[in-house]
C-alpha cells in the first residue's frame, strides 16, 4: 500500500492552505509531518483521509486515484488532538465499532478488541465509559479504535499534545513498537522537532502550506536543504549569523574572526549566513578550534531539565541550549564557545552550501 500526493493545492475561501505538495509515502513507513501551527499539517492529513477533497491535484493509493472517494470507502483511521470517543458507548464498544460496521464475526471482534486493548494497557477499563477515564486512557481508547481495524493509512494529528509530559514519553515509545509490527502507512503530525527525532522514520517539514523537505528523519535533521528547514527542525531554532569568508579567514560581522578550517575551505569567498545549533554552543572549551565569544545574558529560561540561555552582544542575538538547570541573572557576562567544525553555511538565497562533516549529537 503506497500513498502518493501529486501537485496538491488546497484553497479555502480564497486562502491557500496547501500549495504544490508532492509526497510519496512508501508502504509500511512511519512518517512525521513537522511544522508550526498553521503550517498545514492538519489540512494535509484531512486530504489524505478524504475528509476534504483537494482543490487541485491527485491522491493515489496503491496506484489507484482516490481523490474524490469519500472517507467511508477508504480504509483509513485517524486520531485527533482532542480525545474523540463515542461517549454513549463503553471502551469495548468504542474499540469494536469499526469492526462491527465491517461485519466481522463476534468471536473475531472479541479477540481483536482484547488484543488491541492489551497492547495499549487499557484492558481493565473495557467496561467503563470514555468520560470516566483519564485523558491518557481516553486517548488510548481513541488509538485503539484507530489501530484495531488494520487500516491502510493511520493518521495521528498531534495526538499527545494534550497529555502530560510523562505520559507523552510513554505513549510515544509504545507507538514506536506498535508500528514496528504493522504494514500500514502511519502519518504523525507534530510541532515539536524533538518528538520527530524520537519517533524516527521519515520526516516531512512543512511551512505555510509548502513542503520544505522530505526524507529520513535523521537526514532531514542533519542535512537541511535550506535555512527555513533548519529553523523549523530545531528547538530552540538554529542560530543564524551573517558572515564572510575571505581567503583564509571567516568573520562574523567583521568582528569575530577565525581561520578557515578544513570543512569550510571548499567554499568560495563571499557573503554567507552561518548556522550554529543552540546545543552545539557550550560554556567550556571542548575542542581546540572552538572560538570564544563574550556575550551578555538576556534571560535564562528553564524548561524541564534543560536551560535555554538567550544571550546577545552588540552584533547579534543567540540562544544556547544547556543541559541541566543553570541560573543566570540578566546582563551577566558569559563566555561561550563556538565549535567552528559544526557550522552550517547558507548562501544568500538561504540554500545550504555547507554541511558539517562531524555530525552526531543533537
Amino acid at each position, binding site marked *: 500500500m503506497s500513498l502518493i500526493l501529486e501537485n496538491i493545492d488546497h484553497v479555502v475561501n480564497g486562502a491557500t492552505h496547501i500549495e504544490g505538495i508532492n509526497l510519496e509515502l512508501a508502504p509500511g513507513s512511519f512518517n512525521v509531518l513537522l511544522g508550526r501551527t498553521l503550517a498545514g499539517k492538519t489540512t494535509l492529513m484531512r486530504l489524505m483521509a478524504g475528509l476534504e477533497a483537494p482543490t487541485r491535484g491527485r491522491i493515489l493509493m496503491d496506484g489507484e486515484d482516490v481523490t474524490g472517494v469519500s472517507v467511508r470507502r477508504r480504509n483509513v483511521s485517524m486520531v485527533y488532538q482532542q480525545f474523540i470517543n463515542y461517549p454513549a458507548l463503553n471502551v469495548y464498544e468504542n474499540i469494536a465499532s469499526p469492526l462491527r460496521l465491517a461485519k466481522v464475526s463476534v468471536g473475531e471482534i472479541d479477540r481483536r478488541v482484547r488484543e488491541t486493548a492489551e497492547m495499549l494497557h487499557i484492558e481493565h477499563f473495557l467496561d467503563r465509559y470514555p468520560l470516566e477515564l483519564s485523558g491518557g486512557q481516553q486517548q488510548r481508547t*481513541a488509538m485503539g479504535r484507530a489501530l484495531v481495524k488494520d487500516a491502510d493509512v493511520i493518521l495521528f494529528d498531534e495526538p499527545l499534545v494534550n497529555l502530560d509530559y510523562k505520559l507523552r514519553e510513554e505513549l510515544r515509545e509504545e507507538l514506536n513498537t506498535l508500528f514496528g509490527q504493522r504494514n500500514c502507512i502511519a502519518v504523525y503530525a507534530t510541532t515539536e522537532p524533538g518528538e520527530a527525532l524520537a519517533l524516527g522514520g521519515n520526516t516531512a517539514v512543512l511551512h505555510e502550506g509548502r513542503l520544505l523537505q522530505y526524507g529520513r528523519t535523521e537526514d532531514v535533521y542533519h542535512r537541511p536543504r535550506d535555512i527555513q528547514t533548519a529553523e523549523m527542525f530545531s528547538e530552540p531554532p538554529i542560530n543564524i549569523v551573517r558572515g564572510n569568508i575571505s581567503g583564509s579567514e571567516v568573520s562574523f560581522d567583521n568582528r569575530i574572526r577565525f581561520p578557515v578550517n578544513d570543512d569550510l575551505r571548499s567554499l568560495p569567498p563571499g557573503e554567507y549566513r552561518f548556522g550554529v545549533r543552540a546545543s552545539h554552543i557550550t560554556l567550556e572549551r571542548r575542542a581546540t578550534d572552538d572560538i570564544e565569544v563574550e556575550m551578555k545574558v538576556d534571560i535564562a529560561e528553564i524548561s524541564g531539565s534543560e536551560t535555554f540561555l538567550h544571550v546577545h552582544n552588540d552584533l547579534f542575538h543567540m540562544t544556547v541550549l544547556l543541559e541541566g538547570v543553570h541560573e543566570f541573572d540578566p546582563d551577566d557576562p558569559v563566555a561561550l564557545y563556538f565549535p567552528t567544525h559544526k557550522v552550517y553555511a547558507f548562501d544568500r538565497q538561504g540554500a545550504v552550501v555547507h554541511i558539517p562533516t562531524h555530525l552526531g549529537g543533537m
Partner: protein
Amino acid sequence: MTDSMPHTPTAVRQRAAAADASRRRKSRSAPLRWRPKMLMGLYLLFVLLPIYWLLNMSFQSNTEILGGLTLWPKDFTFEHYGKIFTTSTWYMGYLNSIAYVVMNMFISILVALPAAYAFSRYKFIGDKHLFFWLLTNLMAPPAVFLLPYFQLYYTVGLFDTHIAVALAHCLFNIPLAIWILEGFMSGVPKEIDETAFIDGYSFPKFFIKIFIPMISSGIGVTLFFLFMFSWVELLLASTLTSTGAQPIASVMTSTSTASGIDWGTLAAAGVLTILPGILVVYFVRNHIAKGFALGRT
C-alpha cells in the same frame, strides 16, 4: 506596574483590619442574619398564595367559596374532582389537550433534529439569515395567523381535529426547537462526526447511535419547552376546534351555566392543568438552566 497593585504591606494590613471589623459587626447583630431568610419566605408566600388559593377552592363546596373568607376548606370535598373525572366534556378536554401537545412535540422534534444538524454543521447560502428568520417566527403573535389557519383548515377539512392544532403550534415550536437543538449540537465537536465516518458509519446510523445519545439532555430540554408552549397556548387551540378536539382551557371558559359559575369545578380543573407542567419540570429540572442558555455554555 506596582501602582496598579495594592499589594503593599500597608494595604494588606488595612484590608485585614476592615475584614475583622465587619466580622465583629455581624456577630453583634444576630437578627440581621435572619433578614435574607425572612425576605425569601415573604417572597415565596406571595408567589405561592394564588396557587394555594386555587387548591383551597378546589376542595371547598361552592357555598363555602361564595360564603366568606376561609383560609382552609372547612367542609373538605372531592366532589369537584369527581365531576371532572366522570363528565366526558371535562375529561375529554384533558385528553384532547394531551393529544395535540404530544403530536406537536413529536412532529416538531422530528423536523427540528435534521434542521438543527444542518445549521450546526454545514455552511450554505443564507444559513445565518435563515437561522435568524426562524427566530422572527417566534416574534409574530399567533393571532396574526389565526384567520389564514382557520380558513385553510376549514376548507381542507382539518377543522376541529387534533392534528390541526398540532400543526398550527409547529409555527412557533419548530423554530424554537431548532434554535435550542442547534446550541446543543454545536457543543459536540465536529471530529466526532468525522471519526464516525472514518470508522464506516452511515449517516443515519451515526445520527441515531452516536449523535442523539450525545445530545439527549438537549432533546429532553427541547421537549419540555415544546410541551410548555403548546400546553399554554389557548388562542389557536380554541379557535381551530369546536367540540371534537376542544382543549381543556377552552372547556374551562365555558363553565357558566344557568345556575351561575361552578367555581369549585373550575378550581379543580385549574389544579389538574398545572399538574402535567409540574411533572415535566420535575423530570428535566437538572438540565433546565442549560436549556434556557439554549445549550450555549
